[in-house]
């Protein structure tokens, strides 16, 4: 019996789709059977981030409307044979599926897959309620900005009133240099305010842009810092205890001095 995890945020553009794609890929790489569901009907993007846009035949609305069988709509990933995508419909809107249909869909998938990751649309309307309907657990993605954290707080409240208790927090696109200079909020500031458990911190990384351009998730890139952060989050989802990434920036002048006087 698998587990359904919804990836949500409230605010758009904080990295829900990137997070879903990377965690799905990392879990499949670790040998698990994984399905990612794009619930952003009308504005689908998970297919593009994964580089699977040319393989779509059927979508989630076709499944719930009975135009095809569930297995026919699942697209197998290019890299991992245990990773699948159920794409959103592009020409319909959020009312094309109901929370009840999502619940049934997730129940069906849980029988055959270890992890079902749901990519939630931005906002708190119908799309959000569809996305969380079949979820057992929730991951909230935010960036270290006032607007994103504010929306994350609202989402955490809504998740809890929908009985999705103890959501886990990912702080995305942190810039260690700017934090060190006192120009943006730090991890502890955000965790302190939101009072939820942190499951990972992802540094700002240009490799993410490159990976999105190519349609290859950054977890496959051994030198990408963001990729490394996502691999660690995937390990924590599997229940392993791994330390947070060291994001400390060193001062180059001080480093040189220290090396010169033999302190390291």
């Amino acid at each position, binding site marked *: 019996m698998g587990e359904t995890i919804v990836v949500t945020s409230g605010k758009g553009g904080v990295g829900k789709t990137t997070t879903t794609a990377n965690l799905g890929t990392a879990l499949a790489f670790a040998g698990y059977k994984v399905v990612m569901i794009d619930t952003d009907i009308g504005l689908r993007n998970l297919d593009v981030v994964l580089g699977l846009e040319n393989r779509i035949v059927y979508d989630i609305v076709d499944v719930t409307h009975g135009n095809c069988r569930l297995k026919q709509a699942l697209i197998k990933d290019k890299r991992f044979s245990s990773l699948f995508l159920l794409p959103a419909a592009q020409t319909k809107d959020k009312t094309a599926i109901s929370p009840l249909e999502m619940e049934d869909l997730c129940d069906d998938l849980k029988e055959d897959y270890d992890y079902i990751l749901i990519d939630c649309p931005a906002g708190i309307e119908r799309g959000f309620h569809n996305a969380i309907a079949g979820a057992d657990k929730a991951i909230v993605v935010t960036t270290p900005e006032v607007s994103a954290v504010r929306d994350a707080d609202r989402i955490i409240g809504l998740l809890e009133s929908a009985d999705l208790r103890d959501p886990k927090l990912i702080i995305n696109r942190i810039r260690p240099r700017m934090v060190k200079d006192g120009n943006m909020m730090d991890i502890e*500031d955000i965790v302190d305010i939101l009072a939820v458990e942190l499951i990972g911190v992802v540094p700002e990384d240009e490799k993410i842009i490159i990976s999105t351009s190519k349609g290859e998730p950054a977890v496959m890139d051994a030198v990408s810092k963001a990729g490394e952060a996502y691999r660690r989050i995937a390990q924590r989802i599997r229940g392993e205890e791994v330390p947070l990434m060291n994001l400390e920036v060193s001062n180059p002048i001080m480093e040189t001095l220290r090396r010169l006087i033999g302190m390291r």
Partner: protein
Amino acid sequence: MLWELLYRLLGRNSSNPRIDAKERLRLVLVHDRASISPYLMNRLKEELIQAISKYMVIDEDGMEVCLDQDDQEVALIASIPIKMIKRDYMDNIHIRESS
């Protein structure tokens, strides 16, 4: 004074964006969370009545509980008319203290 001068010479502003952000966020969330549910206010009111009724008799109909907000803070304002203070409760405390 000297530090202030030094800071100004080094071109640093006394305001720290990180602290500004956290403080603004904290305030905006107090407002956001406060405006969420009348249901919560009602429960708070009921529990207040329960707690206060142990000590005094209050006029429940004349009771007002609300959140007062301005730019700097949010305060819980309660106006609770007292009908009578319970004498037996005072006595109980005396007995307990003297024993």
